[in-house]
């Protein structure tokens, strides 16, 4: 959940959806995202909606968070039903943050039960929680699995101590393999998150991190280029010249290295920053974002999408809790996408996937742009004429490809 909320239209106080959101709903999966806006410490690079315990209190207290989130789930069920959307079993749930595992396991499993009882859940549903390697134990992971969680995504970030220190990450890198082993024992799918391009990280450091991640034998790896977001402590340090700004060539080198190491280990890329072991280990919840599915985002600063309506909640946990306590929607703003905007989003999202984008979805301008993208080595000729899929170089220039396809 990025820091600054977008500009949009005012959201209705009752959260009601326009009739346009209903069309085609039966063909879209439905997911639930639960944002847990708490962290033990705030990392210097992070611009997500998250607070440390000291920031909060009262209605926004961590202990009362599950109750507040339950209220929003209630609201979600009401709003969807009132809008006339068909009842759809939830196919994915994702607890993100923040640090969801800062909440007691029982809070997470209770929320999951609420989701199940309100909407019903696919028998094959994917239920992920994010976790810090040092915020779990063997027992807590077993309890999560017991409560219906199927997948855990660890914020590993790096295996190199000086890199972790630059990122303000507090965990001991040696903790990661242990935590992964516990998760395996509990029967959970495991994903590891890595960050590359941290100031001071060498190519060798990055190789060490990827190799260490692969040694844990996860099912899934996400690798993100560090983005220096405005308003973060990191941005201030870069601005003051204390740290160098990330360099695009260095980031490209690291991306290519990761992609090569992951491919060697048998992983396949399925989205620009995501790789998985073949056989259904891609994150289905995240695929929903890129495929234009519906999801309801619970929590402060959480974004939702239903049938071309995107909205986002107020950022601060206190105003979020107050709104819900007063029986109102916590939405801060929304946008009802027009046809052109929906098409633009479809292009910019689908292009990121290994499946790519159907050429049929492009307009004339987009189709005319394809040959020169192939010539520049950005689009894979072998997927044509049916689909526009990116080459490795194209993945690194995906935004440029999108601009070309959208004219």
């Amino acid at each position, binding site marked *: 959940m990025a820091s600054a909320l977008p500009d949009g239209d005012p959201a209705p106080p009752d959260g009601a959806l326009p009739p346009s959101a209903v069309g085609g709903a039966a063909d879209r999966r439905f997911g639930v995202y639960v944002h847990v806006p708490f962290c033990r410490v705030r990392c210097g690079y992070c611009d997500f909606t998250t607070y440390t315990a000291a920031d909060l209190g009262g209605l926004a207290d961590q202990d009362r968070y599950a109750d507040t989130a339950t209220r929003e789930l209630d609201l979600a069920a009401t709003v969807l039903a009132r809008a006339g959307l068909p009842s759809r079993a939830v196919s994915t749930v994702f607890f993100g943050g923040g640090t969801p595992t800062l909440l007691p396991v029982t809070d997470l499993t209770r929320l999951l039960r609420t989701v199940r009882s309100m909407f019903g859940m696919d028998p094959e549903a994917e239920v992920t929680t994010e976790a810090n390697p040092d915020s779990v134990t063997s027992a807590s992971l077993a309890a999560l699995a017991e409560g219906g969680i199927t997948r855990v995504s660890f914020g590993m970030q790096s295996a190199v101590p000086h890199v972790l220190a630059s990122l303000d990450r507090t965990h001991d890198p040696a903790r990661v393999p242990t935590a992964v082993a516990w998760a395996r024992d509990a029967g959970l799918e495991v994903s590891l998150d890595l960050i590359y391009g941290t100031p001071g990280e060498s190519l060798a450091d990055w190789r060490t991190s990827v190799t260490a991640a692969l040694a844990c034998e996860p099912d899934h790896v996400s690798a993100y280029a560090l983005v220096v977001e405005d308003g973060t402590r990191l941005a201030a340090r870069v601005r003051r010249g204390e740290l160098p700004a990330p360099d695009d060539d260095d980031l490209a080198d690291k991306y290519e290295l990761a992609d090569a190491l992951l491919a060697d280990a048998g992983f396949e890329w399925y989205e620009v920053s995501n790789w998985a072991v073949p056989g259904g280990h891609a994150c289905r919840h995240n695929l929903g974002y890129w495929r234009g599915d519906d999801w309801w985002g619970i929590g402060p600063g959480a974004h939702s999408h239903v049938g071309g309506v995107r909205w986002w909640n107020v950022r601060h946990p206190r105003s979020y809790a107050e709104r819900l306590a007063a029986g109102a929607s916590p939405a801060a703003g929304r946008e009802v996408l027009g046809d052109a905007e929906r098409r633009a989003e479809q292009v910019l999202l689908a292009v990121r996937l290994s499946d790519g984008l159907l050429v049929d979805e492009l307009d004339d301008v987009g189709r005319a742009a394809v040959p020169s993208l192939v010539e520049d080595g950005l689009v894979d000729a072998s997927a044509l004429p049916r689909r526009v899929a990116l080459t490795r170089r194209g993945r690194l*220039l995906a935004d440029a490809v999108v*601009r070309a396809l959208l004219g």
Partner: protein
Amino acid sequence: MSPMASTAHTPSATPPEAIRNFSIIAHIDHGKSTLADRMLQITGVVDPRQMRDQYLDRMDIERERGITIKSQAVRMPWETAEGTFTLNMIDTPGHVDFTYEVSRSLAACEGAVLLVDAAQGIEAQTLANLYLAMENDLTIIPVLNKIDLPAAQPEKYAEELAGLIGCDPRDCLKVSGKTGEGVEPLLDEIVRQVPHPVGDPDAPARAMIFDSVYDTYRGVVTYVRVIDGHLSPRERIVMMSTRATHDLLEIGVISPEPVAGSGLGVGEVGYLITGVKDVRQSKVGDTVTNASKPATDALGGYRDPKPMVFSGLYPIDGSDYPALREALDKLKLNDAALVYEPETSAALGFGFRCGFLGLLHLEIVRERLEREAGLDLISTAPNVVYEVAMEDGKKLTVTNPSEYPGGKVAEVREPVVRATVLAPSEFIGTIMELCQQRRGSLRGMDYLSEDRVEMRYTLPLAEIVFDFFDQLKSRTRGYASLDYEADGDQVADLVKVDILLQGETVDAFSAIVHKDKAYGYGVMMAGKLRKLIPRQQFEVPIQAAVGARVIARENVRAMRKDVLAKCYGGDITRKRKLLEKQKEGKKRMKMVGRVEVPQEAFIAALSSDAGSTDKGKK
């Protein structure tokens, strides 16, 4: 004697014997405007309460830059023991580009005050104007200004002035325009030394135009000096160069605000209004006569203004093109030397190729367009006019490098100037080196004093418009001053250097340069562009070429990363909006083939050291 004249003469009935017409020759910051201010005060023509600094400089640009673009003529009464006199102070433009205007202002006078900063000594442009005044047989009154300054060395510079005009150093007056010290004695000396005008009051009128200014409310205001005869209100007058006749709607004097009167007689200086709307109908140097009894011979010295330097002016926002046209049309009313015609650049879009008297003129026009019409402009590197003769006998005049012919060229002629550089003698070597690099040839050198030297060069004008003045200033720590005037043309070994992006010529960057400098220009421009052009999805070769021969090459490496790493639920809206913004930004990009070049890159590549001129006072 008495600070204020008790009995001023009436315009149109002033005996020529009581008239003194003079101008002040001075370098830009040597205090001419301040001295003029003091004169206005001391003679009582400006009420102390209405006094403001640089009273006579009307345009903001004039006040800010401390230069006079347009002349003025102020009539001031002055009383001495010999009686009452009428002083006409004719202000002159103070820059090399306006030499012709200066010569006409001087031709309207019998005397000149040579005003020199007592802390700095004479400068090249002052010297050039002094020579002009001496050629016109004007009486020169040497004056050292700013004697109140601690750094003033009046004795030293009095020697210098005395050496230049052949007088005794003790004849140099010493004044302070700032404190007013010495200004009254100066006015007395003007009366004593400057000859009174002589003319035939009964002959057909002949009045010389020394300036014309467009005024929004009144149309063109023409400044004249009457040589012979008399001009009266409501009569018909003839402009002798064009034979155009006009009704004299109003005639009068400036003192220092316009005062309409019953005409102007021999030796008098004043203004006239005919209702025309364009200064081209009232040309500097032209002779005005009566329609009823026209003179047969015009006064000598008239010539049409001739543009020396050309540059393309383009609006940064293409939709401002009509506004630019309108602004140029308006400016033209007040600037007889400005010429322009529409041109199209593949890189810059629609604009105008404009001709100017020189670099300062270019800068003033550009600044006025930006300021008065609120336009943002790009100007291409200034160039001169080339006369190209082809082997097949065709001849053409090239004012835009992109029009330089590709075929077999038999001969190219380029304009040259006669340049004068004044500097402390310690810089002789440095200046010679610079002038040699710029294909100059030394014509002569004279010591003005023990440690100051005057060097005379013939230089191609093209070399001067390409950062010569900046180089001269920086190599002489600001001590050198420069003046130049057109001096015909010469055959030169010139080539056109094209700059190509991914094989496509960018017309705005083409330049005509001497064969020996082609490589230097190519390397410089290619290097500059490599830094200015953002990386694209593909490698962009930048080449400099003469014809088909590549003389320099740089590469903008392909961009390797342009992707947002994270694009999850909460990022999508932001991401889409970013794309929409980038799409807007793309509209401000100029496409050269497939290469997106930001407007700023053009501006930076064209502006910086390519033909920039000194922004401040010279």
